[in-house]
């Protein structure tokens, strides 16, 4: 529920209060990753100005994490209502495929109007796919994991249908700006993702929306009896997850200027779920932490860059992800927390820490 993004300073309060904060372990993981990078390459954190925009590893992290940020944002809301959305990767692929296919067949691919229309079509379609998921979950009453599994399976087929199995490539300067451009020295993709993230954070924390989402997640029946439009809320979060995934798909497609129906957004649903869980939002629904998701996304983006920086094959990245997930989820697991709390009360014993 806490809207504060930074963990409380170490000096304030007891150590236990700091370590029990949901964001403590994720932030520790992020800082440890950044520190490891800086030790390995002291220039890691330096940012310079090149060709009129900022340049450096931190900027890379911010730019590369934009699509995941958007997907994880939708995922957090869905998970908060006790749901899960497996179809986001497929929606990413479909959005990219639709936009690029439209631009490729348009008479003037460089025109701003064409690009805006393509983006509009892709976003509306993504929203509709999200609405479809929401319909299955909230109206038909299918379990979220299965309802979205349907679109996850069929979605890549649909994306391939749109691109006719080809990898569609286009050249269109306005469209390229979305994924690879800079504005005020910062990557446009980052600005878009952070802007949407900020807007949603504002809407959920400064209006009743966040509380309603949590109410539905904590107890759907009770919230319905209390007058919350549970069905509408669930439907809305799935629709939003679709929309944000579509936007992420556009950024990804624009970054490489190609629509690859097979590989665009592959496993992004897993990364997004990972980011949400690392951020301390429980898959059981209820309370959610957008700031936690924010940190989770940064951890995953930093981890990916770290592996590349260390000269390890990116194919081994999953192994490191597994270690981070295991470490963070174990540290957050009820059993370990209980053990830590017991040890904090008693004097430090010689028993080994579990984990």
């Amino acid at each position, binding site marked *: 529920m806490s809207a504060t993004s930074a963990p409380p300073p170490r000096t304030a309060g007891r150590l236990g209060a700091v370590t029990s904060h949901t964001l403590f372990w994720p932030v520790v993981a992020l800082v440890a990753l950044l520190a490891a990078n800086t030790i390995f390459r002291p220039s890691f954190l330096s940012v310079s100005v090149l060709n009129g925009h900022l340049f450096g590893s931190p900027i890379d992290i911010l730019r590369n994490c934009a699509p995941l940020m958007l997907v994880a944002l939708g995922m957090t809301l869905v998970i908060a209502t006790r749901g899960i959305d497996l179809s986001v990767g497929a929606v990413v692929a479909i959005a990219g495929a639709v936009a690029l296919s439209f631009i490729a067949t348009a008479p003037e691919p460089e025109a701003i109007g064409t690009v805006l229309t393509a983006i509009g079509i892709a976003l509306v379609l993504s929203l509709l796919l999200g609405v479809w998921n929401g319909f299955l979950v909230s109206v038909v*009453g299918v379990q979220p994991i299965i309802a979205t599994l349907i679109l996850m399976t069929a979605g890549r087929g*649909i994306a*391939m*249908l749109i691109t*006719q199995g080809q990898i569609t490539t286009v050249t269109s300067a306005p469209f390229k700006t979305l994924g690879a451009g800079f504005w005020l020295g910062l990557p446009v993709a980052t600005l878009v993702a952070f802007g949407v993230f900020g807007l949603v954070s504002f809407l959920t924390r400064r209006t009743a929306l966040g509380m309603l989402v949590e109410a539905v997640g904590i107890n759907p029946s009770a919230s319905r009896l209390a007058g919350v439009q549970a069905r509408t809320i669930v439907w809305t979060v799935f629709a939003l997850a679709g929309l944000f995934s579509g936007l992420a798909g556009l950024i990804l497609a624009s970054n490489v200027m190609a629509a690859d129906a097979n590989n665009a957004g592959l496993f992004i649903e*897993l990364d997004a779920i990972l980011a949400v869980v690392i951020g301390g939002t429980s898959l059981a629904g209820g309370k959610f932490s957008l700031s936690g998701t924010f940190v989770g996304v940064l951890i995953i983006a930093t981890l990916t860059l770290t592996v590349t920086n260390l000269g390890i094959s990116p194919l081994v990245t999953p192994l490191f992800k*597994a270690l981070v997930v295991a470490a963070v989820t174990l540290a957050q697991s009820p*059993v370990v927390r209980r053990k830590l709390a017991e040890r904090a009360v008693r004097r430090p014993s010689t028993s080994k820490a579990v984990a």
Partner: protein
Amino acid sequence: MTTTVPDGGTTQGARARRGGGGPATRRALRLDRRYLPVVGTFVVLALILVVGGMRYDNFLSVGVLANLFINNSFLIVLAVGMTFVILTGGIDLSVGAVLALSAVTAAYLLNAGMPAGVVIPLVVLVGSVIGLLVGAMVHVFEIQPFIATLAAMFFARGLCFLVAPESIPISEETFVALAGWDTWIGGQWRITSSVVIALVVVAVAFYLLHYTQFGRTVYAIGGGEQSARLMGLPVARTKVLVYVVSGTCAGIGGLLFAMYSRSGYSLTGVAMELDAIAAVVIGGTLLTGGTGFVLGSVLGVLVLGLIQTVITFEGTLSSWWTKIVIGGLLLVFVILQRVLTVRRT
């Protein structure tokens, strides 16, 4: 929340009191509602066969059907393991990656000169150990199955690349001889060693699930974990064991895949866990747990395989239609299940 199946635990309990007995034998007269999804799967299977047989020559040949088993043997094994996990209300996302890890390890060790007699049990054990780790995470640390198996999936996939970034061909003689072994039933139905292994796994799973205390506990947990615990059933042990079963099945699946492809490649089995889950759902197992059958999952795999076969026979249809059709079929079955559970309550 979707409605859970409250009678799952009680019927299983009732059967336990009667001292066991096959689900199909005792109540043959009136069709139990629990069998309806499986009957649905069977109807779809028959429908594809009939329509395919009418549309294409040679579709209903023994060769096509025999190949259906040969090409899907590893998926059958994965789906069997997945059935155990889903029956308890869990899910296992790691099976595809564990399959790849097992296949890659087999290829690597065989190439390093280890005898097949050592390698084969060892790679199956790899799956069991990962399953045990997942089970421990789920049970001891109370991490959701989804996340625990997701971590296992990343872990296994990463290990794959660490063991072998490139594809490793298998040339060890005993292994190749085992993989190449086949026999013809009635002179026409070709059965390979992988089909035999897959069928043995199905038989063992069927026995475990329907004729042992372990199997009844699996159903009971799916029906209601709290009730199962209050009944004094070994819930903790069973919850860990289902992941061991699933991991072991994935290990065996990797072995079958290595036999099938005569190589180990770290990118095999990407998204295969989804095929396995789809097969289990199409086979009539409820994802809420408590209701479902191993044989249903086998039918589910056959339906997926037949869809692939039909699209190959059609010729003009591109491969992506497979995914779209499977998605559509999933939708139909999910809605069917939904209708059945609503009517029951």
